[in-house]
């Protein structure tokens, strides 16, 4: 097989693999298998969700709050994400008792960069739609873009970095008790 065809096939397979990884991740979250979800994160994960400001078209560089400097919706590592999962398991975390229903959808997955050959790292971008339905009539729709860095390990792909760009200025949900 010609080298370029081989390369194209490998890229396609990688793309498919990442796609499937995101689908499985969504499955775990919606099935409330949060401990299994935590196992998909690297120990040094950064999970960051900046605020979005209404800015002039000449100042779009100011649209997101600055990482590691400004306020954000969430700025997490493995320790606090684990605490969030533990809190969900207490049975007295009233924001999620009774449990909410969520559906996580991921689309427009693109591979932006692939680094390394054996233990690869892949930068990806995608769109997300997270629907949360709670109690009788609470319905939150979170839509936005995600920038993820995935790392290949002996146990498969892991999430090393996730930047969540929610398309909302004023958050139209009362709280953020789901993962993105």
């Amino acid at each position, binding site marked *: 097989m010609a080298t370029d065809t081989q390369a194209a096939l490998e890229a396609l397979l990688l793309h498919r693999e990442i796609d499937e990884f995101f689908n499985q991740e969504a499955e775990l979250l919606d099935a409330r298998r949060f401990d299994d979800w935590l196992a998909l994160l690297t120990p040094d994960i950064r999970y960051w*969700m*900046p*605020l979005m*400001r*209404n*800015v*002039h078209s000449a*100042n779009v560089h100011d649209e997101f*709050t*600055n990482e*590691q*400097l*400004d*306020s*954000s*919706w*969430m*700025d*997490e590592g493995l320790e*606090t994400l684990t*605490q*969030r999962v*533990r*809190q969900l398991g*207490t049975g*007295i*975390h*009233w*924001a999620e008792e009774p449990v909410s229903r969520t559906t996580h959808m991921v689309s427009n997955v693109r591979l932006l960069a692939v680094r390394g050959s054996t233990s690869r790292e892949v930068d990806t971008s995608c769109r997300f739609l997270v629907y949360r339905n709670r*109690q009788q009539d609470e319905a939150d729709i979170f839509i936005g873009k995600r920038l993820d860095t995935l790392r290949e390990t002996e146990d498969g792909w892991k999430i090393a970095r996730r930047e969540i760009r929610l398309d909302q*200025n*004023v*958050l*139209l*949900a*009362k*709280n*953020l*008790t789901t993962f993105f």
Partner: protein
Amino acid sequence: MEEVSEKDLQRLIDSEKGTVSREIFVDQTIFDLEMERVFARSWLFVGHEGFIPNPEDFFASRMGKDPVILTRNKQGEILVFLNSCTHRGMKLCRYDQGNARAFTCPYHGWSFSTNRDIVEEPGELVGVPHFKDGYGEHLDRKRWGLVRCPNVVVYKGTIWANWDPEAPPFLEWLGDMHHYLDVALDHRDGSPGGSEVIGGVQKWRVKTNWKIVAENFIGDMYHDISHRSVDTVGIGPGGKGRRDAQRPRLAIGFSELGHGVLGELPYTAEPDYAPTFASHPDVEAYYRKVYDDRVRNLGDRPRVTNSVGTIFPNMSFHSKQPRTILITHPISPTEVELWRLYLVDADAPQAVKDAARHYYLRYSGPGGMTEADDMENWTYAIGSSEGAIARRQDFNYQLALGKAEPVPGLQGAVQSGSYSEENQRIFYRRWAQFMSRAEWDSLMPQATPAKARSHGD
């Protein structure tokens, strides 16, 4: 309900008995009257100097239901204007913040300037398309200038405004409550001011009444139980609970002013150093150093400390862990928009600011592990109060009824133990005074009369 009479108010708020009618949390007429009688007459937090550091910077804020522009003009004056074109109402400024030489309306092109080199009074109309052929040059540019808020003050970086020209000075409105607000705004080493605001404001909507938030922060140790899940998990800076260990706090309320905190009585010697942020050694070293500086700086001067507080009507804050400002903007009887700002010592090393910010964000705001549960309680306390039968059943604020004792050293303050609803009773009594359209000489009998001072002080 179409009007609220003195008699209605007595029925709605019984602070002697400790009951409050649910109507005040769900009724549209009461809400509309609150906008006039409480919000249009109160000192309201509108922003922070850190959002408008340079000449001609602006920050879009709110006062009650009114959008306002907070800006610093070329001469450095801090000004607040109604964010609505005087011509036909278009929202003039639709950016969260920025820098602008003039505010130009996108609709018909009227433009307004704050620069005293160009206009006599900030906010005057400077540009009107077709001024000559359309208005014959007769349009009064001063009369149709931006609606300017008559009273604006800066207090240790925070900016406050009041629409009522007769309002008492801000410092009198605040009274001795300032000692508790200072805990949040002063440097940890005790030097006045010395805090800065972290960039970005968390803004989010919750389906509750604005007073539910105010009364939660005014001193409600009783609801501690609702945070058991986060206490179990241990998000505190030392790895346990949700905060480092605290000394006992009391509900301390300012009976005449409507403010309150969970805090300590004034004391004159700094308690022994207790390690904080123990899991971050370099951060802990900073707090140890500023503790020593604090002991030196404050000497035997009285000082206080507190965890939470509310300044009537809608400004709440955390002073220590976390260190935040929360503004509750009313949207409707059953909806609020919350704005959360975070504070740090301005000259702290970046590592200290980073640890603080991470802690604040896992504690506070919609993504905070503590406050996520508050939002649930606030939502459904109101959601289950709208029915005809529910409205007949008053809320109960009888905890520690009759236990209030004066606090020596704090003008007009009372304490009523740790578990108390005295501060809520104080808050609703104050609310009823404003709702009854009391004059300033009865609302603030000790205040400097408006005639005896100049405004904007």
